């Protein structure tokens, strides 16, 4: 445990790495505050740049983007009332009214402090919980690993999107994409349909860039989105915002509400650790809970301090929570950590329960990169706020072509293959159609990354002992499978119940 920290400190506290993290944080903040540019997009586009770095530097850069992105949405949420990313939807409820009262500076500073302090809280949860979980995970055989992946995918499918069946379909689609190419055990080429392009498989990152970046860009080109963008820009010009931020004074404001801060951070960390659920759910749940616990809930929504604290603490603490299953089990909690894991794989490091034992310097590096990134976020947000604001002025007409080019560069750099670019476009279109019909993309992406791991473990289990009932008789494996069934049953029951209530209330009217 202690050498994990020592190694981590030694890896991260070098000038080069510190600067890399700083750049990552700034990129993340910019990505977070531009509406329509998501954190997941920023992180997939950063990845190709990190190929030339050593693993710790690459992963640190990405964690910087992650932390920065989670806090960047705050700026647009507070000043324009538009969430820069889905993770800051609840921030608009209170930060925007406060800023309209002429207290923009206060709203922003409270948000920054809440983001920072909740990151620190989730850092402590991460370092104390992740090693325990991975120690436990070391006792698991292929049966348990397979069941764990099954339960992760069903949970992802049930927490995202509008129906569990669509979520499960998306997850299975992801698993199928991953089976194209060489079989992971015998190397037999599968489903290449005699196309040279497909013989090497469909690269995970190309799927990711296509589904997250290209599809999102296509969405922002719809006529109604473009109109929205134009209207917003006209409003912007009317406003000439001037504000002062008082770091010390607002710190006291935040510290006076320890209950809200700790409560929201804990909720955020737990939600972050659940596969598939991330900042976009956490900020709303944390806000909701804070409102329930509050002595004066009627103030929520009118620009109260607690609302901003709850929302921003809720979304930033998901970073630490998200890293728990990623580091301890090799199961990414979100698309962002899925990219993080694939970055490790590019460097030949296999994520999984053995990661902490085999690569303590990398795990320690991840921990401390997160801590350092939180400090950089605090500093750059306070010092750079005035400049960050200007970025929201970049129009869609510039943004879309530029990011499309970055997607092409990112894809090409990966394997130096032209044919990958066609896969990129195809995946973008599939992702676009999926989102149009409310199939969520997270299960598909996590299916792609977990597919090969699931298959290898399933077949290893079959080789070790042909008795397939072992999946149900080994206790841990059974618990996971029961959880998977429960998560499906619970979601189906819940949808049924809300539909029933809806019908009932419609009938009464």
């Amino acid at each position, binding site marked *: 445990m202690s050498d994990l920290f020592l190694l981590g400190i030694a890896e991260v506290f070098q000038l080069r790495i510190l600067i890399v993290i700083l750049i990552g944080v700034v990129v993340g903040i910019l990505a977070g505050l531009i509406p329509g540019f998501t954190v997941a997009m920023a992180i997939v586009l950063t990845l190709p*740049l990190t*190929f*030339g770095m050593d693993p710790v530097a690459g992963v640190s850069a990405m964690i910087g983007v992650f932390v920065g992105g989670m806090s960047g949405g705050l700026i647009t949420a507070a000043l324009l009332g538009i969430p820069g990313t889905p993770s800051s939807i609840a921030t608009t409820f209170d930060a925007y009214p406060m800023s309209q009262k002429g207290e923009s500076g206060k709203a922003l500073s409270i948000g920054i402090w809440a983001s920072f302090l909740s990151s620190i809280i989730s850092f402590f949860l991460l370092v104390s919980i992740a090693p325990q979980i991975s120690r436990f995970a070391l006792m698991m055989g292929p049966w348990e690993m397979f069941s764990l992946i099954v339960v992760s995918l069903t949970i992802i499918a049930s927490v995202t999107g509008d129906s569990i*069946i*669509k979520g*499960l*379909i998306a997850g*299975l*689609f992801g*698993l*199928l994409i991953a*089976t194209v190419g060489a*079989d992971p*055990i*015998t190397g*037999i080429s*599968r*489903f290449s349909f005699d196309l040279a392009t497909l013989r090497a498989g469909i690269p995970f990152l190309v799927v990711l860039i296509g589904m997250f970046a290209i599809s999102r860009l*296509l*969405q922002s*080109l*719809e*006529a*109604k989105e*473009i109109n929205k963008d134009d209207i917003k820009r006209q409003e912007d010009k009317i406003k000439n915002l001037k504000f002062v931020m008082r770091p010390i004074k607002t710190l006291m404001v935040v510290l006076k509400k320890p209950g809200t801060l700790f409560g929201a951070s804990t909720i955020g960390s737990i939600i972050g650790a659940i596969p598939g659920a991330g900042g976009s759910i956490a900020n709303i749940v944390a806000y909701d809970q804070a409102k329930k616990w509050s002595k004066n809930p009627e103030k929520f929504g009118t620009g109260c301090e607690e609302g901003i604290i709850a929302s921003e603490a809720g979304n930033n603490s998901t970073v630490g929570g998200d890293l728990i299953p990623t580091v301890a089990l090799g199961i990414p909690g979100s698309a962002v950590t899925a990219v993080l894991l694939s970055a490790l794989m590019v460097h030949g490091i296999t994520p999984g329960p053995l990661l902490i034992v085999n690569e303590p310097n990398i795990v320690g590096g991840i921990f401390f990169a997160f801590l350092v990134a939180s400090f950089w976020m605090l500093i750059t947000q306070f010092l750079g706020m005035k400049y960050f604001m200007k970025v929201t002025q970049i*129009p*869609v*007409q*510039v943004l*879309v*072509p*530029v990011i*499309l*080019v*970055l997607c*092409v*560069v990112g894809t*090409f*750099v990966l394997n*130096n293959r*032209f044919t990958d*670019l*066609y896969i*990129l*476009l195809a995946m973008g*279109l599939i992702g*676009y*159609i999926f989102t*149009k*019909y409310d*199939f969520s993309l997270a299960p598909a992406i996590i299916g792609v990354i977990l597919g090969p791991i*699931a*298959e290898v473990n*399933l*077949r290893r289990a*079959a*080789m070790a002992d*042909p008795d397939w009932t072992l999946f149900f008789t080994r206790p841990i494996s059974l618990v996971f499978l029961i959880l998977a069934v429960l998560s499906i049953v619970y979601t189906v029951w819940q949808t049924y119940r809300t539909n029933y209530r809806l019908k009932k209330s419609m009938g009464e009217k």
Partner: protein
Amino acid sequence: MGEIIIGLALIALGLIIYVQGGDLPSLNEAFFNAGSFPRLIAGLLILLSLILILSKVLELRKRKPVEDKVSNKEKMGSFYREYRLVILTTVVFFVYIFLLQFIGFVVSTILFIIGAAILIGYRKRKEVMTISAVAVILTLTIYFFFENVLYVRFPSGIFI
């Protein structure tokens, strides 16, 4: 309606994988050869897609048929207005990645950025000037950064 089409497409995909998976050579595994896992997934996908289609069909039936006052032509028109840019940008993007290998990274990228921006609505003189500057600076920065720092060879066709 869209869901039903997606469901049918996924069933078709599942069937292809299922049939192809059966033809894959098997080594001496007792079970679970190269084709088994994909077949398992494909089977589940077909099953779930069927459930999705059935539930959507039931939903459509329950809903009382609304008299369609809007003609098909008008529907197409409003669809086109909403998605015009999505379709056109996809086409331009496809042309860009197709031409990339023939006329080289730098030239095609600069042309693509300017072309796409004009297409999306950056048409005033000042705006075209801005985007041209952005295109040239960005493309050259990417080109030199990747060629000299990360040693990635970009495609060079007849131009650079």
